[in-house]
């Protein structure tokens, strides 16, 4: 990394952090290859809702996980005793572990931990149990409810399964959770607390009560006849998001540790910042005052300039004011400084997986750097501004990427930025 020099690390005693494994279960693909291919092909994972019937006309689309063979990761009993969100994360972590070729047997597991981002906990399991409680009374309650329901259940199950005794944390920051989990894991390795972290996010929010409530709040896409077009961030006609489920887990590793075992390095993490707009619980400040600050702070942390950024992996929440906020922040910082960067968002293809979204973005950032390709932003037929549209790519595009800026934002004023870069020694 030429900008944040080795000297910096020697002076501060901080460790460098790289990404060495990816695991993903998303509506548009299970496993990093399928996930990446659908992103490059612009093939959306949004389809007609099939999991349950839903009487409201408005939102019959969702990003469901289909074709996930839970039995290849879990015993039947374990499937009965866990929530979908637990299983997605554990399966994604096992994929990431395999991808990293890390041999846990030879590792000091007190130095390996996990940070899981999650927004709502095991709501499907909890909702089912609530019906049992109402209809049959407390004695029929499942002893597995707490594990399946509480947000920290996933991290616990994962660490037990892999025997990890390092930091085991769960961060619940809504849509920024996945990015925050990666950022916190980066800090933990940076300060030398752990050597390896499984970091990412998981979510399984597809229950009808949530869809109904989100619909009433007016944040769901109204396009139901053409699911492929339903999720359309940064459009003049952006009308809401599509609720999705999934998980993404990344293996973050201390650089020397990765080099010693000759690991395949996807990229390096160069910085992480998060802050709060303190503007409103639901609305956002469309000027993006705090998002701009988060971006500037992450540049300062990595000691780079806006000119160095090649690709911006945006959140694209598909709620108009949030999209405008993200776009305004980017325009303000990059205008007249950098003309060549590209912008995309994965949300048209993945939908909105809440607490997992930042992790899916992270996997996309890593794949983009490794493969030197920027995935397209689909469904953006009517971009808000000309300035913005100059940087869009409608087809996947070859690009020698050094720095990727990844932005996430959420209700309750939360903004998070992650900066990743190509590892060049």
């Amino acid at each position: 990394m030429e900008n944040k020099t080795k000297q910096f690390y020697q002076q501060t005693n901080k460790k460098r952090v790289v990404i060495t494994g990816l695991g993903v279960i998303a509506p548009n693909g299970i496993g990093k290859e399928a996930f990446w291919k659908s992103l490059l092909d612009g093939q959306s994972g949004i389809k007609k809702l099939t999991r349950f019937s839903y009487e409201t006309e408005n939102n019959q689309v969702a990003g469901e996980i289909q074709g996930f063979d839970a039995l290849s990761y879990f015993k039947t009993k374990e499937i009965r005793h866990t929530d979908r969100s637990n299983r997605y994360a554990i399966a994604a972590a096992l994929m990431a572990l395999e991808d990293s070729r890390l041999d846990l047997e030879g590792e000091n597991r007190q130095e390996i931990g996990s940070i899981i981002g999650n927004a709502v906990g095991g709501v499907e399991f909890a909702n089912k149990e609530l019906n049992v409680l109402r209809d049959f009374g407390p004695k029929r309650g499942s002893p597995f409810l707490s594990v399946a329901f509480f947000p920290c259940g996933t991290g616990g199950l994962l660490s037990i399964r892999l025997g990890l005794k390092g930091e085991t944390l769960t961060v619940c920051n809504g849509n920024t959770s996945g990015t925050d989990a990666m950022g916190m894991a980066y800090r933990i390795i940076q300060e030398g607390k752990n050597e390896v972290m499984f970091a990412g996010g998981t979510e399984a929010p597809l229950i009808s009560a949530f869809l109904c409530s989100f619909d009433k709040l007016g944040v769901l896409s109204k396009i139901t006849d053409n699911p492929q077009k339903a999720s359309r961030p940064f459009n003049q006609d952006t009308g809401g998001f599509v609720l999705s489920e999934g998980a993404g887990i990344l293996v973050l590793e201390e650089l020397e540790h990765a080099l010693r075992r000759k690991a395949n390095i996807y990229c390096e993490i160069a910085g992480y910042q998060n802050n709060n707009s303190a503007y409103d619980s639901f609305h956002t400040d469309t000027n993006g005052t705090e998002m701009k600050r988060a971006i500037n702070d992450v540049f300062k942390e990595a000691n780079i300039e806006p000119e160095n950024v090649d690709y911006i992996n945006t959140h694209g929440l598909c709620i108009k004011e949030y999209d405008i906020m993200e776009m305004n922040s980017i325009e303000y910082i990059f205008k007249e400084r950098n003309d060549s960067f590209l912008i995309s968002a994965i949300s048209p293809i993945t939908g909105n997986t809440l607490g997992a979204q930042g992790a899916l973005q992270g996997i996309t950032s890593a794949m983009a750097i490794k493969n030197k390709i920027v995935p397209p932003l689909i469904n953006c037929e009517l971009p808000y501004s000309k300035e913005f549209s100059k940087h869009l790519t409608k087809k996947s595009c070859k690009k020698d990427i050094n720095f990727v800026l990844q932005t996430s934002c959420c209700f309750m004023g939360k903004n998070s930025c992650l900066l990743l870069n190509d590892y060049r020694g």
Partner: protein
Amino acid sequence: MYKKRRVVVTGLGVIAPNGVGKDFFWQGLVSGKNCVVRVTRFNADNFYSQMAGEIHNFNPAVYIDKEKIPFIDRAFQFAIASAKLAINDSKLKLEEENKEKIGTFVGLGVGGVNIAEPQFNFYATKGPESISPYLYLSWFPSACSGYISLEFKLKGQSNVISTGCTSATDAIGLGYCTIRDNLQDIILAGGTEAPLTPETFNSFCSLRALSHRNDTPEKASRPFDKERDGFILAEGAGIIILEELKHALERKAKIYGEIVGYGASFTAYHMTSLEPTGEESARAMKEALEAGQIENEQVGYLCAHGSSTPINGKMETVAIKRVFGKYAYKIPISSIKSMLGHPPGAAGAMQTITSLLVMEKNFIPPTINYQNPDPDCDLDYVPNSARPAQVEVTLINTSGFAGRCAALAIKRYFN
């Protein structure tokens, strides 16, 4: 070399079953007042356990705009109110501060179940018309720190940490690291929980983790006593003001104590049972002490997890002995859960506040309901009545759900 900054505590805010605010909280603790009662928040007649540590005199309208209250879950209300109390106590003039440098780290175990549970029930029994558009905003744990940041216009980091029973310890520990590493100057840190709803309550009943001593609630929470049979679920919140030392000195703030170490580990043993050797729990405590360069003999008080489950009393004792060896017998150890019950996401914050008040008041609160010595628990648990003591260093130990262990070392402030 890169210099680590010192972090002190300059404000305390607490809402607990024994009272609102640190004064009532402390009076309750030193007088050994039991707060465990029969559940009144819902009809618990058919439940395995029917007792809880409830908060009865909390009026959210004192702290939050009336029209917002119905959309903010009880757990988040506690957190906002505790934050307000802590800020008042710290005498911080927020309008003069750089709010970009003030963050919020809140621990929460469950989520906004007080609004969500009835909502899910309405939805199932009455159909979609009954559901509120604000279900997500009042349910998702993220709102917990979000509402505090919003209320005080704090633009720094805003994080919700959910690690079960260690949530608040982790939130304070991570907040301490964040100031130490020069990422923020002030952090409102702590935890909150309001789990007294039928489903959440029953999730602990089904685990058989709660006490079954339903006829005598006042005797039900008895950590380290031979007859202990489970914990008492409680509600409440604790928020403290973590502040960079120089910043605190410049504004001549009252300093309650200095956070000098945070240690955490994971047993990877079982989701709902404790690991028998106490190795990882001991590691968390050791890490906290080592980070603060504290010798065993300096520790004058240990604020224990002491949940009152049969296994906790035994294992925590084993772990404490692993850390301190023979000196373990000389440390006064007490469990405030004997009086308050156990509010999972807030427990660590209440223990931290207790420890800071111990150093201020030179008194150690007791472990009440301690009547029958248990050969497995043979340390000094400060039985039944408070004890005067000059304490310079305290250690907070928490452990819980899934096998997470976290500890904090706190020192009286000297320059």
